């Protein structure tokens, strides 16, 4: 199983195997499936206990769908998710139990909070669902509010519209943590925030992880944020993983031309190194009808004839443990001598 393990001896906390989700675009009077958007296509990866796995990619590359598939908020067309070594829903934990242990923090802090529930009630809803008494759920909510830096005396009875964006995102985090989950998926959780607020929330997220021993999957289009929080990074392009590996390795020596282009497109603080031209031309191709072979080849500076014929497998990178790349042009170890993964 090629899941890009950083430390092969530790079993993964959550593992996605060959997840695929195609959305049918229905058209016409009879709503026939006219075409399919291949949002996530045969994606396998794992997140290990205690780490933060960053997921980056352009908008529309399937990051959010991957997150939703991982948490079973969207049913996959094929593939499965194991949690703690057991397949969710089948041999392993029930969906309900799984949802207590794996939580999500959503991007839009505004629409993800019910405008007609007070902050306290929003957080207390989860425990009530799982059979806690109202009073106990409230106590839990108040404790969590202080944990995320919102004193309950001041904030418990406020409605979402009375909070700032950063405060709302703190409530979202508290809601996710009220179950004492093992895994938290952040879907663009800081993308909508001001830079200064973003830094505060990131600090909070990191602090909570250390204190509560959490495992994170952190989705963002912001490469700097992902570098700041992640132990390992997964790069997606058009519903596929193109590169996965230790954050340090990926940021130091990106193997895939797409990763390289992404990193080159980062704005720099150094005035002598201005970004002159966009490293990539054009938009990503339509996921309805992705290019044959390697999906990146239409924009790739290194495209070769083989790229249009054969889809590059996700293979280990030479000399770097746990770093894998899906590119014909990248220097990889020969398939005959794989790094034991």
């Amino acid at each position: 199983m090629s899941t890009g393990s950083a430390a092969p001896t530790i079993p993964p906390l959550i593992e996605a195997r060959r997840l695929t989700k195609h959305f049918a675009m229905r058209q016409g009077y009879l709503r026939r499936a006219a075409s399919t958007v291949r949002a996530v296509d045969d994606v396998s990866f794992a997140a290990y206990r205690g780490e933060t796995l960053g997921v980056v990619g352009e908008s529309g590359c399937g990051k959010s769908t991957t997150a939703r598939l991982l948490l079973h908020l969207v049913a996959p067309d094929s593939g499965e998710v194991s949690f703690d070594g057991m397949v969710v829903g089948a041999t392993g934990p029930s969906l309900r139990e799984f949802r207590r242990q794996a939580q999500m923090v959503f991007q839009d802090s505004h629409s993800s909070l019910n405008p007609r529930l007070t902050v306290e009630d929003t957080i207390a809803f989860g425990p009530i669902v799982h059979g806690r008494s109202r009073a106990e759920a409230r106590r839990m909510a108040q404790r969590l509010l202080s944990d995320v830096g919102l004193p309950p005396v001041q904030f418990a009875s406020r409605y979402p519209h009375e909070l700032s964006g950063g405060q709302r995102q703190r409530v979202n985090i508290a809601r996710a943590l009220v179950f004492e989950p093992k895994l938290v998926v952040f879907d663009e959780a800081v993308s909508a925030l001001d830079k200064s607020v973003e830094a505060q929330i990131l600090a909070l997220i990191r602090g909570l992880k250390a204190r509560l021993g959490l495992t994170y999957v952190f989705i963002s289009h912001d490469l700097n944020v992902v570098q700041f929080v992640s132990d390992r990074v997964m790069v997606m392009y058009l519903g596929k993983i193109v590169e996965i590996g230790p954050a340090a390795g990926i940021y130091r020596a990106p193997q895939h031309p797409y990763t390289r282009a992404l990193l080159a497109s980062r704005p720099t603080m150094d005035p002598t190194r201005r970004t002159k031209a966009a490293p990539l031309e054009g938009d990503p191709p339509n996921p309805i009808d992705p290019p044959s072979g390697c999906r990146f080849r239409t924009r790739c500076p290194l495209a070769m004839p083989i790229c249009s014929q054969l889809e590059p497998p996700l293979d280990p990178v030479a000399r770097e443990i746990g770093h894998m790349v899906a590119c014909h042009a990248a220097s990889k170890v020969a398939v005959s001598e794989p790094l034991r993964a």
Partner: protein
Amino acid sequence: MRAEYWSSALGRLRGDPLTVAFAVLILAIFGSALLAPWIAPFDPSAGSALRRLAPIGTQDHWLGTDELGRDMVSRLLHGGRISLTLGVLPVLLALLIGGTLGIAAGFIGGHTNAVIMRTMDVFYAFPSVLLAIGLSGVLGAGPRNLIVAVTAVLTPQIARVAESVTTQVRSFGFVEAARASGAGTALIIRYHVLRNVLGPILVFATSLVSVSMIISAGLNFLGFGVQPPTPDWGLMLNTLRQSIWINPEVAVLPGLMIFLTSFCFSQLSDSLRSALDVKLQ
């Protein structure tokens, strides 16, 4: 946590003097209609050829008499019993049926939505009065069938409002977040959907009370509902219209009652709207 939201809304309603005034007025109208048999000075169907079309302020008949010499006060009081029932009951029934169907359609979506809403559209295809006349004609005359007919007219309207607000709410992240916390459909609807859709649906339904009264009045006039000499504001308005030139101030009285009741209801629906909106506080 559920009770608090509604009780705080009720508290806000009570705090607004204008709302309280309209509520008291509506209660007075309903109360007097309810107590009509005991407080009406005369028998509403006992006329007198000698006292026809007495003007307002006549001794014993201080709101005058109608074209058959029947006491207007008594007739207005008794008429309220039927008019208010025909105004409110169809709305309540439509709220229950249309609201449930609309919320279900909006929340479930997909084929269920298509089946429910396209069925509603069939009713929508006819002008409401025509549909009510048709249904009354098929079902036969009588107040009960009239209620059924008016309910059938109002149900698709409420269903459509319910469906559109529910569809909107369903797409919000907090519904997905609730699902992510392991909640089932029933709990999600109770805590997250109803709280956000019931306000707009109630406000719309309140505004339909006057529509319901007017449609019912029309149907009564056409002979599908209650029959003369039973007093009903709509019916009275229609029979008195012949005396509009002789005694206009008496002739408009039933219309005034319909207007007053409708007006109170729309004012209340406005107050309800702002009371239910936590953002306005």
